[in-house]
């Protein structure tokens, strides 16, 4: 994996259409007090810049399914997400031209593939994609801001996406028996994303252990919430209709999945 270095070599300008600027302005003017309006505008510009960049690469996005497109969510949350159908969401954080760090608000910690950081200057400046960063996975000890020097290159985003798409296809086809382990499509996306980062950033000898830990952590988190207003209501084992495989079975499946990943990607892993 690339070590951190100056982002000046790999940043890319993404000019926006007049329509994009108008949408951002329209969102901002929608019943929001001034500081919130500015936040919404910058967030929308960052999202629209990333959307255009992904369009260059023919990576499908769904703006209307993104939280930024929902008036209630963008009012309550500091959100700048962009949905990549079937894969999850990327967060597109704006950073001002003179700023060294950008905030990673709590709202962006959940279910993100990673962070794009976009420099938004004045109205005359073209937005600039500075780089990419991993998502916040440790909610008990979260990273709340990101310095420019911590960014990964955009190449790393493409490397990650290759692993992400490979894992999704594998679970759709060859490892279909893993599907009942996921309580929802969102949980599946989150787990697949964590596995992708493991494969991108960790040694292949660690993949299976770390991948298994991710599954176990998600299973534990399910225990934190009750459906129904009685504290004694039993917790549903899973929201999925299919029967989850036994522990030994799913551990074998995870082992086989990471063995297959190793065949495909282990030469690329460095750290």
């Amino acid at each position, binding site marked *: 994996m690339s070590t951190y270095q100056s982002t000046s*070599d*790999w940043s*890319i*300008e*993404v*000019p*926006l*259409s*007049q*329509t*994009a600027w108008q*949408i951002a302005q*329209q*969102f901002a003017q*929608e*019943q929001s*007090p001034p500081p*919130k309006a500015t936040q919404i505008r910058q967030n929308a510009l960052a999202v*629209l810049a990333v*959307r*255009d960049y992904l*369009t*260059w*690469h*023919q990576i499908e996005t769904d*703006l*209307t399914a993104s*939280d930024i*497109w*929902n*008036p*209630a*969510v963008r*009012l*309550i*949350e500091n959100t700048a997400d962009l949905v990549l159908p079937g894969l999850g969401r990327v967060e597109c954080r704006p950073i001002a031209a003179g700023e060294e760090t950008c905030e990673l*608000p*709590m*709202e962006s910690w*959940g279910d993100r593939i990673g962070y794009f950081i976009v420099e938004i200057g004045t*109205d*005359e400046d*073209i937005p600039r994609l500075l780089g990419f960063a991993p998502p916040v996975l440790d*909610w*008990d000890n*979260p990273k709340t801001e990101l310095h420019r020097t911590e960014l990964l290159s*955009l*190449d790393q985003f*493409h*490397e990650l*996406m*290759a692993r992400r798409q490979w894992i999704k296809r594998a679970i759709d086809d060859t490892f279909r028996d893993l599907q009942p382990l996921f309580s929802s499509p969102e949980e599946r996306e989150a787990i697949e994303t964590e596995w992708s980062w493991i494969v991108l950033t960790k040694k292949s000898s660690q993949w299976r252990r770390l991948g298994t830990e991710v599954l176990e952590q998600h299973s534990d988190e399910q*225990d*934190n*919430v*009750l459906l*129904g*207003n009685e*504290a004694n209501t039993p*917790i549903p084992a899973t929201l999925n209709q299919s029967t989850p495989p036994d522990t030994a079975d799913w551990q074998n499946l995870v082992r086989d999945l990471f063995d297959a990943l190793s065949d495909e990607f282990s030469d690329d892993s460095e750290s």
Partner: protein
Amino acid sequence: VTSPPSADSPSEMNEQWYEELEQLIQTACAALKGSVKHRILIDAIVRKLQAQRIPRSKNESRLQRLPLHQLRQELRQDALSTTWIHFLANLCEATTKNTESSYCSQTGEHVVARLCDYFGHRVFDLVTAWGIEQQNRDQRTDRDGNLRDINNLPSPVKKPDLLDDLIKQVEEDTDDKLKSVCLKNKPEITAQVLLRQMLQTAKETNKFKFGDVIQSIANEHNIKPARLSRFYYDHCKPLITQLGNTRSNSANPGGNPE
């Protein structure tokens, strides 16, 4: 080396620069479309062209005739936006066809020429469209700039305040969805309680500090903020999203982005 026909000629743009560009293009187009290699090389091509401030076009001088500096920037950026999308979608096709720019001896030159030509045309289109819009506006307004047919304009529809609307719906909770979901071993923390506090705080302070509210409620009930935050995402947010969608459908604020 022949300079790009409709571009300025930065002195650095020499034969070696074109050769490097050509090499990048050939390698990118030989790679499988959508592969990591293809995408990384596409980015490298864009960076190389942007570093030379390409595309440029003689048509850009048309922008100088426009009255407002900011308008010129907007139109230039709009033209650039369309240009990059079109250019990258057709990059590999452009290298394989023998087109009108046959006076360019190298693929690199040919590609730069196409990029500049396309940008020039987009600038031309935008300036023309702006001129037509100006004419129409002149016809719609009197000498002082007031609209002539003010009676034909639709009256603005006053939407209820979004925040008030959300507070009302959370309080009513007509199908008891918000009351029926709570944190394990914390029956007092329901989705309704969390959302009510979140919205009321925003209403009273005019601040929308999601993290602060989560932290405050978590401290009050002696639970981890992360746990409360997950509860919000899994069980409160879908309901807020639904409320927002209902409102969007009644009056789409952003229109269709495409």
